[in-house]
């Protein structure tokens, strides 16, 4: 994974905090890859294009004036969280549209409709991830990168400056939490 680390050198020393615009430009290639991979993995939601996702992520992040990211790990983690939010919002809207448009089903091309079970599961995972973020934000960030953005353990380890083994262990811990939370909700 090739980050342009030079943009962050000053930031790490506290002398320069690159704004979202600069980081977005610097890491555009990586962000594009992240968006493309995520949409490919969630193929059911392919009606949202890579450019649209990136554009909306940019608007969301640049709209939060004054945000500072001292290193690429925090910026990419934040970007991953924003992209998840956008994809989940998109999934919610489509599910709401389907419910609201129940009697207009013939007007919809069946090939364009995502599998409702997948969408529901995805929303459930995202809700549980929000809960995890409150108790162990580092685990939630890892899940954003691994599950929602498709980063490998090796890539995440390099990004977060951790050993691969530590990343794997944290991933297993996060899975335990999410599984328990999702299953608990399902039995209510």
């Amino acid at each position, binding site marked *: 994974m090739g980050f342009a680390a030079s943009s962050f050198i000053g930031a790490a020393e506290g002398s320069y905090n690159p704004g979202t615009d600069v980081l977005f430009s610097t890491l555009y290639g990586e962000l594009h890859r992240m968006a493309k991979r995520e949409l490919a*993995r969630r193929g059911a939601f392919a009606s949202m294009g890579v450019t649209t996702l990136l554009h909306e992520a940019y608007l969301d992040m640049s709209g939060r004036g004054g945000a500072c990211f001292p290193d690429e790990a925090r910026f990419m983690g934040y970007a991953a969280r924003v992209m998840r939010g956008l994809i989940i919002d998109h999934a919610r809207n489509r599910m709401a549209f389907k419910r609201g448009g129940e009697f207009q089903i013939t007007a919809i091309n069946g090939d364009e409709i995502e599998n409702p079970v997948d969408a529901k599961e995805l929303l459930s995972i995202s809700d549980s991830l929000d809960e995890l973020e409150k*108790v*162990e934000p580092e685990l939630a960030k890892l899940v954003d990168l691994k599950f929602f953005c498709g980063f490998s353990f090796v890539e995440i380890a390099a990004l977060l400056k951790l050993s691969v083994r530590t990343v794997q*262990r944290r991933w297993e811990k996060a*899975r*335990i939490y999410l599984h328990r939370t999702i299953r*608990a909700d399902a039995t209510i």
Partner: protein
Amino acid sequence: MQTLSPEQWQALSPYLDEALGMTDEERTQWLSSLRAQNQELAEQLEILFREHHALSQKGFLET
């Protein structure tokens, strides 16, 4: 299956950190030793490890 409160999770979290890096055999011995000190804690962890085994078997979140 009940959800874990933030307090329950915080209490279990360091033990999970420790045990998830162990082999099955090491973990069994570790749990046995822990059970002698705190049976309730050991039982809660044992349940979570069983769930972990099951979720791994079915490939939870592995897409």
